[in-house]
């Protein structure tokens, strides 16, 4: 959103006389580096660092093991990211407020347990159990959100209590049986095992996504032009759409070479795109960003702080429940260990690695996708190359640390920029 109007600043140079092709090229390069340097100083790097990290990870593992970038591995990767990725999307909402939600792991386990017990043990229809499970997450999040907003304590304290509470509730629900195996052919199992084998599905999604982005930018350009405001050049729109098209169609091609478009990935992308629109294009989303920029400022602008804060934790709880169902689907079982282990840390790390600021107010849902892609790529590559878990933890930790450093540096330079 921030770079909407920035693109046209480079447009006037097109009319300058062109003395030499070489000179034109170097000029263009200079322009690019100038823009880059400006963004670097202004602390607006966005998702560039994480894309670089992802490239390094992929190249490294591909050189260590030729199977890493195989369609089979990439396709599995695209399904493996969904469970934790959905949880990370909820975390992005909470981070935008400048808060942390520590309960998402427990809530994801609780939702999975609710589903398993209702469906398998009690014989409730699957769709109903699914809805109840997701609403359980919403309810848990709402309770936490309301207490956090009302008592005005940091969310991490409330959700730390939630972490213990919901875990206890889950253990109580599961009872002594411990592990519940899900129906291998049920809806939930299908969530991560169903593939659209028809090649048209993956290509269609790529075309649809690219087309919508293009039409959206084109319509905005036309409207801006109509009311006499700065607008993007057609060439700029075309270039951006082209880059997007190359990425999405390459992904579709790779997926089709294995089993086609995974249902899980489709759901993940739709949810992420939908919530991205909610955050950036709606009144509610604007309030979330505003609260992250300053609670006091938001309150003075007569925003309902209580309602927004409650709603954000409700979203995070809902996404945790959804993610928990996908995680259970992947192993078609729910056990006492569901939602524990590195899940919580990975979800938070994914959001931060993807470029969502820990200080609140900066980030998008897409950062969760990029971040979880990095984390899961490292995990997958380590598994392929038989590297011990110890090393994997250290490397993931290093990436997270780097992300936090970049975050805090860019925040500082953004502030310093204003004083100049």
């Amino acid at each position, binding site marked *: *959103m*921030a*770079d*909407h*109007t*920035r693109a046209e600043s480079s447009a006037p140079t097109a009319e300058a006389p062109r003395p030499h092709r070489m000179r034109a090229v170097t000029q263009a390069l200079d322009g690019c580096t100038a823009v880059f340097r400006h963004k670097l100083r*202004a602390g607006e790097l966005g998702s560039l660092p994480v894309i670089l990290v992802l490239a390094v990870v992929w190249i490294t593992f591909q050189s260590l093991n030729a199977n890493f970038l195989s369609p089979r591995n990439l396709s599995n990767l695209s399904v493996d990211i969904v469970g934790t990725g959905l949880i990370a999307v909820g975390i992005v909402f909470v981070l935008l407020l400048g808060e942390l939600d520590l309960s998402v792991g427990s809530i994801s386990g609780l939702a999975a347990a609710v589903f398993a017990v209702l469906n398998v043990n009690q014989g409730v229809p699957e769709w109903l159990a699914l809805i109840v499970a997701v609403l359980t997450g919403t309810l848990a999040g709402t309770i936490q959100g309301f207490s956090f907003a009302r008592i005005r304590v940091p969310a991490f304290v409330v959700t730390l209590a939630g972490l213990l509470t919901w875990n206890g509730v889950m253990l109580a629900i599961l009872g002594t049986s411990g592990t519940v195996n899900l129906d291998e052919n049920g809806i939930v199992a299908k969530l991560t095992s169903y593939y659209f084998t028809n090649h048209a599905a993956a290509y269609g999604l790529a075309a649809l996504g690219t087309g919508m982005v293009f039409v959206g930018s084109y319509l*905005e350009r036309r*409207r*801006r032009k109509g*009311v006499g*405001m700065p607008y993007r050049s057609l060439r700029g729109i075309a270039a951006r759409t082209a880059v997007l098209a190359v990425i999405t169609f390459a992904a579709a091609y790779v997926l089709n070479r294995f089993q086609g478009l995974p249902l899980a990935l489709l759901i993940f992308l739709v949810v992420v795109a939908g919530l991205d*629109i909610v955050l950036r*294009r*709606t*009144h509610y989303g*604007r309030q979330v*960003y*505003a609260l*992250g*920029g*300053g609670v*006091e*400022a*938001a*309150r*003075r*602008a*007569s*925003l309902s702080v209580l309602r927004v804060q409650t709603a954000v934790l409700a979203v995070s709880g809902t996404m945790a429940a959804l993610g928990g169902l996908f995680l259970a689907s992947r192993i078609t079982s729910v056990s006492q260990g569901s939602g524990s282990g590195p899940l919580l840390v990975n979800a938070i790390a994914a959001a931060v690695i993807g470029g969502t600021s820990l200080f*609140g*107010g*900066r980030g998008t849902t897409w950062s969760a996708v990029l971040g979880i892609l990095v984390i899961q790529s490292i995990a997958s590559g380590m598994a392929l190359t038989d590297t011990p878990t110890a090393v994997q933890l250290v490397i993931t930790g290093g990436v997270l640390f780097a992300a936090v450093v970049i975050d805090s540096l860019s925040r500082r330079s*953004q*502030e310093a*920029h*204003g*004083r*100049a």
Partner: protein
Amino acid sequence: MPAAPLLALHGVCKRFGVVDVLTDIELELHAGQVLALLGDNGAGKSTLVKVISGVAPADKGTIEWEGRPVHIRRPHDARSLGIATVYQDLALCGNLDVVGNLFLGREIRRFGFLDEVEMERRSRHLLEGLTRGIPDLRGPVVSLSSGQRQTVAIARSLLGEPRVLLLDEPTAALGIEQTTEVLDLVDRLRDRGLGVLLISHNLGDVKALADRAAVLRLGRNNGFFDVNTASQEQIISSITGATENVPRRMAHQEAGW
């Protein structure tokens, strides 16, 4: 009979915990008038602004709007009456861009979604009427200079077509040229019939701009002046307490014995 003042305060008190920040404050603000609110640090000027703007509602006393008593309990109440506030700490969201800040809390929507194009068009129009150097409308506000931020803050307060404008130290962080610009702007707003309450430390600004001045000292009224006739010395001694309202204070203290 003169028209009722746009805004009048009678016997307004405000406590924070055990501290009496404001005691029995009286104030009248008329349309088309600039009233300067003066006082030393800690005199309660900013708190008074918060009382009027609903951020920190009064504990006691009445507030009258055009002669009839009103309750201001939330910022929303003040805003719907037509009171706009520019705070000393500006109260902008640093991470949002200029357009986002201007329309925060009253976004324009189109088909249920934010209408960024229309908001940006109006922002541009509004800022063009206020200032010569329009900042980058799509950069985060934290990256603007303090003068630009002040312009954004004032512009935001004008969006709701207010009738009373509260300005808390609008020129404190500005250079000479920007100060002149802001003062000119306030002058134009007065000509449009707004009532302006101007908090300032700068007596030069006050002399140049204000019609009347009210002085606060230690959370109490300490004199009203017609800026055109009162001397600078009179005002300053009232601010510093050299002409403190001695009898009243003495009586107050005696009552406590």
